[in-house]
């Protein structure tokens, strides 16, 4: 049982990192980015191709792939900031469905629809607790999630740029009227979250089902985790990701309920939404 739960923790760490990115995007640039995992997936595939086809060292290929993911994310952000700067969250989010579809299909064309031979950057056990092995991947993803969440929190509350980002997220028009450049700042948020997501995906991909669809659809458990924090709180997003990972690890152990495993993120989402939306809320303030 415990081994199963802990096996889920690596995936949970990945969910948590993506959930932190989603939360950040939702707070700072008013979008639920459906292509959050897809850009990471694409960057990861390019890294694999660079390593296997051109013989680049793993670390260099991975860095290039991660950077490409950041650029892709930045391009989507540029589209959103240029043409949808006044649009509501729904429209901005709907737009990201386009890149999701595009990146998955493009990766089919370029890399085929089979799982990719990801070379492990990190592998092997980190340590053993009470007879249960904790892998290095688990350790890295879980700490990555926590580090990112803490770093982002410090950035937002302690630095001048963080203050500006928060100002932009609360009243974009007012911030612009004070001369705060919204477009470069919001594109930077897209790039940074794109890079972070890609790092997490590149680290975990060797140990997960790593075809294009599975990786791009990580957005579902990530969104479920982010929902625990209402797309607002970073700490709860991390907790949500880890809990979801552990739960799927547990459920996978029991054959009778293995079908439930597929629906776990969905049920998680539904229950959370029912809870958070239990009070009547209107679509406009007035």
């Amino acid at each position, binding site marked *: 049982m415990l081994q199963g739960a802990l096996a889920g923790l690596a995936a949970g760490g990945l969910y948590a990192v993506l959930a932190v990115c989603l939360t950040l995007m939702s707070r700072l640039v008013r979008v639920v980015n459906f292509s959050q995992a897809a850009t990471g997936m694409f960057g990861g595939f390019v890294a694999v191709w660079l390593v296997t086809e051109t013989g680049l060292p793993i670390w260099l290929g991975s860095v290039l792939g991660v950077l490409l993911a950041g650029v892709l994310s930045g391009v989507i952000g540029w589209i959103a900031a240029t043409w949808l700067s006044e649009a509501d969250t729904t429209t901005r989010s709907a737009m990201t469905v386009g890149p999701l579809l595009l990146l998955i299909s493009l990766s089919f064309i370029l890399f085929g629809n089979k799982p990719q031979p990801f070379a492990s950057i990190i592998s092997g056990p980190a340590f053993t607790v009470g007879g249960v092995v904790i892998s290095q991947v688990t350790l890295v993803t879980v700490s990555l999630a926590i580090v990112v969440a803490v770093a982002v929190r410090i950035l937002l509350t302690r630095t001048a740029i963080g203050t500006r980002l928060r100002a932009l997220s*609360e009243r974009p028009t007012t*911030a*612009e009227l*004070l*001369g705060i450049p919204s477009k470069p700042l919001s594109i930077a948020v897209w790039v940074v979250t794109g890079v972070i997501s890609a790092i997490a995906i590149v680290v975990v991909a060797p140990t997960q089902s790593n075809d294009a669809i599975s990786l791009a659809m990580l957005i579902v458990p990530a969104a479920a985790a982010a929902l625990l924090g209402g797309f607002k709180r970073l700490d709860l997003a991390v907790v949500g990701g880890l809990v979801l990972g552990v739960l799927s690890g547990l459920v996978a152990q029991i054959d009778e309920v293995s079908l439930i495993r597929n629906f776990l993120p969905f049920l998680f989402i539904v229950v959370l939404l029912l809870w958070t939306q239990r009070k009547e809320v209107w679509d406009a303030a007035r």
Partner: protein
Amino acid sequence: MSALIIDDIAVSRGAGPVIQGVSFRLEQGRVTALVGPNGAGKTSLLDGISGVAPISAGTIRIDGTPIEKLSRVARAKQGIVHIEQGRAVFPSLTVRENLSLTARTPAEIDAALARFPELEKRIDAPTALLSGGEQQMVVLARAFAARPRFLLIDEMSLGLAPVVFMRLLPIVSEIAEQGVGVLLVEQFTHLALGLAEEALVVASGQVSFQGPAATLREDASLLHRAYLGGAAA
């Protein structure tokens, strides 16, 4: 002293223009009161000047440099600061953080706060917890710290008790005395006219009076006619 020159501008919202053929001059160091009935297009006019809404015709210049094609951010850098209706504070940011958005140094924050001793003990409180009057003070202090050349103020009195509003009005004069051109939109017409040197009445999207504020102060019937705008003509 430079001037903000608005020449024959139109602002459109949805189906048609809400402001049409409006021209005037905003001098630095003077307060101009912009008054008119609800729905006349006062807010749209400010939006057009600061870039919140695009203008569909005309030019806006500072000392001969056209700025109407610039973004909001670029116009803000040219020294146009627009205080929107309501309390335009960033609610989760503290008073200090709000001011740090425009002030370059801590000394400038202190200088801006010097006018509002009430705020000093609340400087690290999120502005959401402040009273309406205090929030409006933060907005004024933040605008002051931005070192504007031209300040557009939209309905500062909205939802404020008269006592509080009376406390804030002299600050507007003080800001103007520092060489800032102030355009003051206000529903309390006589208060605005009492403060301003110049007056501008907008009715049905057009300027129906332009001249010294004193003229309107002294002649109520003139004001009344200006309010009816095109209808009376």
